């Protein structure tokens, strides 16, 4: 059962952290319509995190979502480094959104037939949201990749920068083989193969080059609680109000 908990926790932490990062664009987006769309997707991510923490609480007796989100040591978080990075400029945030959300979409697609019912149910429930996130990301990558010389250049350098971090999404958990044999989740390696295939098509269509990343350059560690310096600051900010007066009813 520990393997399922690990899986759910890392998914929840990824969603919470990337959702918080995306929300940092609220009010600063490049145009009003995009600002609203990006903020709305950020809310979706926080919602996914809430649902996943809820499963941990109900099925495994973990603490409630607020406690898990706001009152946990950094080293107990299982998010990947990719989610932790600051928002940077919009090209980076869009590229992260593109690479991360494709992986998420395939993960939930795989989980929709999971033998662990709560995950399968959640996967089916949020299918539409994720479909939109991927559509939004694809639309931008295509247009900016095939836009002006500057936009193409920015997308390509963001892609080159992101890829070693993006591959860290697929860092394996120790007991992953249990998940595979029990039909809960087909594994990170399988996910990565499907992901590379899927994003390759989009990247190619956008006129960008697929960067070649040596395995030793991949940013690992998040899944075992070793994080970038950015996570610490993010958590400080995220839990600031919560820590001011604990146990307050909202």
């Amino acid at each position, binding site marked *: 059962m520990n393997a399922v908990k690990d899986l759910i926790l890392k998914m929840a932490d990824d969603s919470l952290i990337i959702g918080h990062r995306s929300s940092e664009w609220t009010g600063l987006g490049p*145009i009003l*319509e995009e600002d609203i769309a990006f903020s709305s*997707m950020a809310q979706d991510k926080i919602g996914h995190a809430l649902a996943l923490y809820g499963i941990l609480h109900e099925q495994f007796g973990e603490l409630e979502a607020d406690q898990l989100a706001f009152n946990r040591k950094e080293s107990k978080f299982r998010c990947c480094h990719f989610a932790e990075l600051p928002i940077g400029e919009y090209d980076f945030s869009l590229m992260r959104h593109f690479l991360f959300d494709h992986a998420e979409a395939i993960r939930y697609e795989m989980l929709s037939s999971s033998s662990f019912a709560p995950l399968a149910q959640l996967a089916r429930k949020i299918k539409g949201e994720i479909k939109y996130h991927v559509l939004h990301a694809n639309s931008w990558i295509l*247009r900016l990749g095939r836009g*002006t010389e500057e936009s193409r250049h920015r997308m390509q350098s963001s892609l080159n920068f992101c890829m070693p971090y993006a591959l860290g999404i697929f860092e394996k958990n120790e007991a992953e083989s249990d998940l595979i044999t029990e039909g809960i989740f087909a594994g990170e390696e399988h996910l990565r193969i499907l992901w590379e295939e899927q994003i390759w098509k989009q990247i190619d269509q956008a006129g960008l080059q697929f960067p070649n990343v040596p395995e030793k350059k991949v940013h690992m560690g998040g899944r075992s609680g070793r994080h970038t310096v950015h996570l610490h600051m993010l958590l400080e900010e995220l839990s600031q109000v919560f820590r001011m007066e604990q146990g307050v009813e909202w």
Partner: protein
Amino acid sequence: MKTKSPIVDPRIIRLDLEKSASFNHLGDMEVWGTYEVFHQKKRGDQHIHAGVVHAPDPEMALVFAKEQYGRRLKCANLWVVKTSDIYSIGYENEDMFETVPEKIYREAGGYKLREKISQYKKSITSVNIKERETL
């Protein structure tokens, strides 16, 4: 994704997740045009004008319209139409719509049907009450 429209239906189903092959190339410092958004609450309902989005092409207009106008209300479908493709009668000609008061018979309310209906309803209920009393 693309559903085949009947030949008589001139609408274009733009949002193609798989291909999205046709789109306008974004230019430097480009100012985007506007698209009018029509929102349909459920299948079979009228599409009702919901507002406007700025977008570089119809696909992006749909992408933006989804979050702008489809996220709070229940939504089955959205249309977008380029604002410049809408034709309108100017407000300077608003007087054309004024009706002469004598022509009230052209308005549905002139039939006074409502009164007859309520009279009928009253008679029905009084009959029912009498029937019940006799039982």
